[in-house]
């Protein structure tokens, strides 16, 4: 006979509005084993939890059911409440009569009937609950940062400063990410390289930081505190220990290739570093374009290398390392505007994107900072900026707003005015969204001091006429169609997720939304965590954002990781599988099912038929087991049971719900 207490929450009017909470409490009293039932305005509040604690003492309760919101929200809260009342926190069940009942069923009568059923279900299960203990597991005090952009670098520096070793895995030959391509940064217009490169150098020189550039994460196994991660160090064809970065090889290399870093506006060699201030400043051979790899000839770089660092036979190297925490900061891609037939399908050379423009105005860019249009290298007089290309466009692009384009387009207009005297820039916009600190003032200055002409209206067509680009729009403030003869058009393309974001999410076991941005644990309350414990997010991989927000998130993610790594032991969840060895026949079908390899065979000796005999049974490693329960169904005899969700508990719930 159990002594169960049922506590029904009003949640202000959220539940009480469409569920008769008093009646639910009254009905609850009639359930078997329920000795006490009450209702209260806010169960999760301090006084609410006090009601529970008092009731436990007063009525000598040994099981508690709270009928309120989703267990995903307040299960931990009420478990702590039970713990403080001296009860094992796992003798507790919740009935979700808010999200699954009051909020979705307006009919009060039906809502109440369903609420009563849900409470009966919870009461039936709680009777079968057994006290459970958490077990503690060790933590590998080491963090992995995937993606070496500004966000990744900031996370690494913060964690390293807290005294923990960090590894940055960066897909490109150098860290720096998108920010390295940018010329100036808003709203203060300080030069991007001036504030980024020192951080890159700090990262490379920090004793606690190891940079694995030109590498990718191949496989992630294990769980929070004990990830073992396989990293593929792609073959650079250059021996990093010998190379001094002197640059002779890329001077002598005959093969010229479009530089991805310069968005195809400039050239690079087959052996190259993406940009001069690269960290590590060691080149990589692009095996697709290098003639040595294509037809075995050439090899000039090897001949001229003073330290003999060039090694064509170098192969990819797979290393497996243990980490306690992972921070994902893989950044973003730029929307590919070639889907817009009305803007020329990307065929007009002088219709470029924001990043192309960044490379044009960048002093270390292909045009040494002079804004020359790609088609004939003339300096453009009239520059038209088109915003929301791919953003806020459900038909051909993304439905969301990419947050940063209004500011960087204003910045571009400012720089056009500064760098090309007598030039005129027009900006087609729908809404100017500049909410940051000092952003609005920056935008106002562009319109007033830098004579940028803002036209409210989306551009409908851009076409080549002679050497001019005709841009057709409507100034919707006066309601007149307008046309501009431009020399160059800069499209403010949307920020989209990396094309391999989905695969990385599956590798890490974290979820991602319809646009392939990684999904945070809670949009407001846990923005830098994911539902997978130990995996944190920072920067644009979680959603479009600018540098200040990315760095702020990096700091947050780092603090979360530090919080985790600073613990000596970590409690692993008590919801784990458990084997009834007396009935297990050792068929080991469960072993093949477990995704965490938490089940293994062990030999036990027992007295059978008068003599000692050995027998094989399954054994669950409590720290590896994450409590998914897939093994329990595979076990036909039912000797594997998931504590907290046992077969008996679920059967009891099914029966209670079907009465």
């Amino acid at each position, binding site marked *: 006979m159990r002594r169960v207490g049922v506590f029904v929450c009003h949640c202000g009017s959220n539940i009480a509005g469409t569920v008769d909470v008093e009646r639910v409490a009254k009905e609850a009293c009639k359930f078997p084993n329920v000795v006490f039932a009450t209702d209260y305005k806010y169960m999760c509040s301090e006084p609410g939890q006090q009601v529970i604690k008092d009731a436990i003492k007063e009525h000598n309760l040994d099981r508690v059911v709270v009928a309120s919101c989703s267990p995903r929200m307040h299960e931990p809260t009420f478990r702590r409440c039970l713990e403080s009342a001296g009860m094992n926190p796992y003798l507790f069940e919740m009935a979700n009569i808010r999200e699954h009942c009051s909020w979705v069923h307006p009919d009060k009568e039906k809502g109440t009937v369903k609420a009563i059923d849900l409470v009966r279900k919870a009461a039936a299960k709680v009777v079968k609950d057994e006290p459970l203990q958490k077990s503690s597991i060790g933590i590998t005090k080491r963090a992995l940062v995937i993606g070496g952009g500004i966000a990744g670098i900031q996370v690494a520096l913060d964690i390293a400063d807290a005294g923990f070793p960090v590894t940055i895995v960066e897909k490109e030959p150098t860290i720096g990410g998108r920010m390295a391509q940018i010329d100036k940064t808003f709203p203060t217009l300080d030069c991007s390289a001036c504030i980024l490169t020192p951080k890159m150098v700090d990262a490379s020189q920090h004793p606690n930081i190891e940079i694995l550039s030109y590498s990718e994460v191949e496989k992630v196994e294990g769980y929070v505190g004990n990830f073992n991660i396989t990293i593929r160090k792609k073959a650079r064809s250059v021996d990093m220990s010998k190379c001094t970065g002197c640059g002779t090889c890329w001077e002598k290399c005959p093969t010229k290739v479009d530089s991805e870093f310069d968005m195809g506006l400039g050239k690079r060699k087959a052996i190259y570093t993406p940009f001069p201030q690269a960290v590590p400043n060691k080149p990589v051979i692009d095996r697709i374009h290098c003639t040595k790899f294509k037809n075995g000839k050439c090899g000039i770089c090897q001949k001229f290398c003073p330290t003999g660092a060039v090694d064509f036979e170098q192969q990819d190297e797979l290393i497996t390392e243990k980490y306690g925490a992972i921070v994902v900061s893989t950044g973003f891609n730029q929307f590919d505007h070639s889907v817009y037939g*009305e803007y020329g399908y990307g065929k007009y050379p002088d219709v470029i994107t924001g990043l192309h423009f960044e490379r044009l105005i960048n002093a270390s860019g292909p045009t040494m900072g002079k804004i020359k249009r790609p088609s004939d290298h003339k300096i453009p007089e009239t520059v038209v900026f088109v915003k*929301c290309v791919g953003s*806020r*466009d*459900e*038909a*051909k*692009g993304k439905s969301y707003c990419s947050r940063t384009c209004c500011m960087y387009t204003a910045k571009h207009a400012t720089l056009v005015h500064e760098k090309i005297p007598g030039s005129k820039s027009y900006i087609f916009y*729908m809404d100017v969204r500049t909410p940051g600190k000092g952003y609005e003032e920056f935008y106002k200055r562009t319109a007033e001091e830098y004579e940028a002409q803002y036209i*409210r*209206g*989306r*551009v*409908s*067509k851009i076409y080549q006429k002679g050497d001019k680009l005709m841009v*057709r*729009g*409507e*100034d*919707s403030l006066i*309601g*007149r*169609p*307008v046309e501009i003869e431009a020399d160059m058009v800069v499209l403010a393309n949307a920020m989209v997720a990396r094309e391999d974001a989905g695969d990385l999410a599956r590798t890490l076991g974290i979820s991602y939304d319809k646009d392939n941005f990684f999904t945070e644990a809670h949009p407001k309350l846990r923005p830098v965590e994911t539902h997978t414990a130990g995996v944190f997010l920072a920067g644009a991989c979680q959603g479009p954002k600018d540098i200040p927000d990315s760095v702020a998130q990096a700091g947050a993610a780092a603090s979360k990781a530090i919080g985790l790594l600073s613990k000596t032991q970590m409690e692993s969840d008590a919801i784990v599988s458990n084997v009834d060895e007396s009935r297990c026949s050792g068929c080991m079908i469960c072993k093949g099912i477990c995704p965490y390899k938490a089940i293994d065979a062990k030999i036990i000796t027992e007295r059978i038929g008068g003599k000692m005999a050995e027998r094989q049974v399954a054994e669950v490693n409590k720290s590896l087991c994450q409590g998914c329960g897939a093994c329990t169904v595979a076990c036909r005899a039912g000797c594997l049971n998931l504590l907290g969700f046992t077969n008996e508990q679920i059967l009891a719930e099914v029966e209670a719900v079907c009465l």
Partner: protein
Amino acid sequence: MQPINLTSASAAGKDFVEKVRKASGVDVKACYQCGKCSAGCPVAFAMDYTPRQVMRMLQLGLTEEVLKSHSIWLCAQCETCSARCPRKLEPAKVMEALRIEAKKAGFETEDEIATFNEKFLRSVASNGRVFEAGLVIGFNLATVRPFKDAGVAPSMLANGKLKLLPHKIKGRDAVRRMFEKAEKMEGEHK
């Protein structure tokens, strides 16, 4: 320019917007006034209200003003706006629905275009096909410009591009009945 009394306008406008939605399948409330339709519209320059403004007037419930506009008649139904709308709306279908509603309400602001269409349909109703010569002459007389484009007539006649007599098809009564039936069935398109 009198201020618009929005309380009464939007109340009246609400069910007109619903009528437009039923007729055209377009929910004008979804339009966020980006202006891409007006920018791409080939005849926007000649309109009193650009397509975007027409959508805005519907959103604000200015039903009569929109039904009296020139824009809904000048629209050539070339669907450029519908092809490029970022909200996947179809302003062309709205223009079509508004032109039908305007005709029903007796507003034919662009009377010449209205007359041209009427003459066109009357020719179809009576012959089953358009008698082009009759249409042009009828239209010119109705718009009191009897000799408009008269210059081209002789060469067209010579090239057999103008038939003097309409070709009446056998099924012309069936076609005429179609006109009446469609009229009776309110022409609603679900």
